[in-house]
């Protein structure tokens, strides 16, 4: 029993790490096709990472530990999140620790580490990116926490494995007003947290429009590889979490190898589908002006607040 749980955790981490660049490649390929281009192929992010790992590491003059540690922190916190959250199985040795608030805090730790690294370079754009990143993060974290509260009221726990397990057993709850509102709020928060359109443009070359990119302008070689891998893993893990919360069908609730294998296949399919849909939708979106971003995030906060209220009134006796 325990061996299969451990295998599930290992499989989740390996799948997220190996699949995240492929997800990014798929999304770029979908976008390229819709723009009439041929596209570099799904494997291009992996080729980029391989090349970056072979390149010379550069530590810019005047940077300190914050700059050097941030890539490691970003990747390791995301890997821990990938191990914790019930992406493929709800019965793992660590599922008792998979608290939604802990997951939010781990993701915030990665964000803060990257912002500190941006400040540490002492360049104008690094500081600007850090300030913008923190503004977005400060607006996103309350939304995620409120949505977490809304999801945890019916389950009676903030433990993700319990919430997802309840969703598998009682699918009607997912379609309740509280569940739908919380999922919508979380979706907007995930877009902002992973630096996608309309909050941030991941493929921009213009420093003045950057949020995430501006913080990592000084990274080179293996450090840049870690930063890129970390960002791609965050997207994969958050899309996976979103599917686990909104469409948990197929997630293994028992410790059997067949259920786990099916869950991993379904997880890959669901995240690939969601990523493709997101990439296709992004073709139709423009990046929001920076001063309009708080309006969007306030809207998602309102959704989360409504979700909490609805879940309190509709499930309370």
């Amino acid at each position, binding site marked *: 029993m325990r061996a299969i749980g451990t295998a599930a955790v290992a499989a989740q981490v390996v799948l997220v790490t190996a699949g995240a660049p492929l997800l990014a490649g798929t999304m770029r390929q979908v976008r*390229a*096709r*819709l*723009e*009439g*281009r*041929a*596209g*570099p*192929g799904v494997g*291009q992010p992996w*080729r*980029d990472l*391989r*090349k970056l790992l*072979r*390149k*010379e*590491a*550069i530590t*810019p003059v005047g940077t300190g530990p914050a700059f050097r540690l941030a890539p490691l922190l970003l990747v390791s916190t995301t890997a821990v999140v990938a191990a914790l959250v019930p992406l493929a199985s709800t019965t793992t040795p660590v599922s008792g620790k998979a608290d939604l608030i802990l997951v939010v805090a781990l993701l915030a730790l990665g964000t803060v580490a990257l912002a500190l690294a941006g400040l540490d370079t002492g360049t104008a754009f690094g500081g600007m990116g850090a300030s913008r990143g923190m503004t977005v993060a400060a607006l996103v974290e309350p939304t995620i926490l409120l949505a977490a509260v809304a999801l945890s009221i019916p389950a009676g726990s903030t433990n993700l494995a319990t919430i997802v397990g309840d969703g598998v057993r009682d699918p009607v709850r997912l379609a309740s007003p509280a569940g739908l509102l919380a999922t919508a709020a979380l979706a907007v928060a995930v877009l902002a947290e992973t630096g996608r359109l309309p909050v941030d443009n991941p493929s*921009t*070359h*213009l*420093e003045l429009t*950057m949020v995430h*990119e501006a913080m990592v*302008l*000084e*990274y*080179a*070689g293996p450090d*840049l590889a870690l930063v890129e891998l970390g960002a791609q893993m965050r997207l994969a893990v958050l899309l996976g979490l979103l599917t686990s919360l909104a469409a948990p069908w197929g997630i293994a609730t028992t410790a059997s190898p067949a259920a786990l294998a099916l869950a991993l296949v379904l997880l890959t399919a669901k995240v690939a589908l969601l990523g493709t849909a997101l990439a296709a939708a992004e*073709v*139709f979106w423009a990046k929001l002006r920076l001063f309009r971003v708080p309006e969007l995030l306030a809207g998602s906060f309102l959704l989360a607040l409504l979700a909490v209220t609805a879940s309190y009134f509709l499930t309370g006796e």
Partner: protein
Amino acid sequence: MSLLRKIRETGRVAEDAPPRPAPAAPPAARRLAGSVQVRCVDAGSCNGCEIEIAAAFGPVYDAERYGARLVASPRHADVALVTGPVTRNMAEPLRRTVAAMPRPRLVMAVGDCALNCGEFAGGHGVEGAVTDVVPVDLRIEGCPPGPERIVAALRAVTGR
């Protein structure tokens, strides 16, 4: 919805890839293995070459399909595309840009001005050709060089 219809009617704009050029790139290119990040440096160009570079990365020529990508920082770059004769004010920024790039790095001089100052040879604000300021690995001739030439040079580096 009109955008959706436009996408469906337009279909694929990218032209079919021409046959792969003979790999004539310096040995440093082999270590990049199919992935090249490009930083453009306008050292004093008339912007003719910039228009051609933009066309090379546009939908029709689609240099991105061979693994080349434009990036915003020299720290992320493997190749510096330098255009124009190097003006006195851009000589130092050009040296610093190339110094900021992690090894293995390549410098590509794009256009006749970058190669031999072209029209601007002897101008009072001109420091010299690109090769007088930083070591040049690849040359692309033409005034301006067509997108197909820029794409061919980039393919020689990416090897795809």
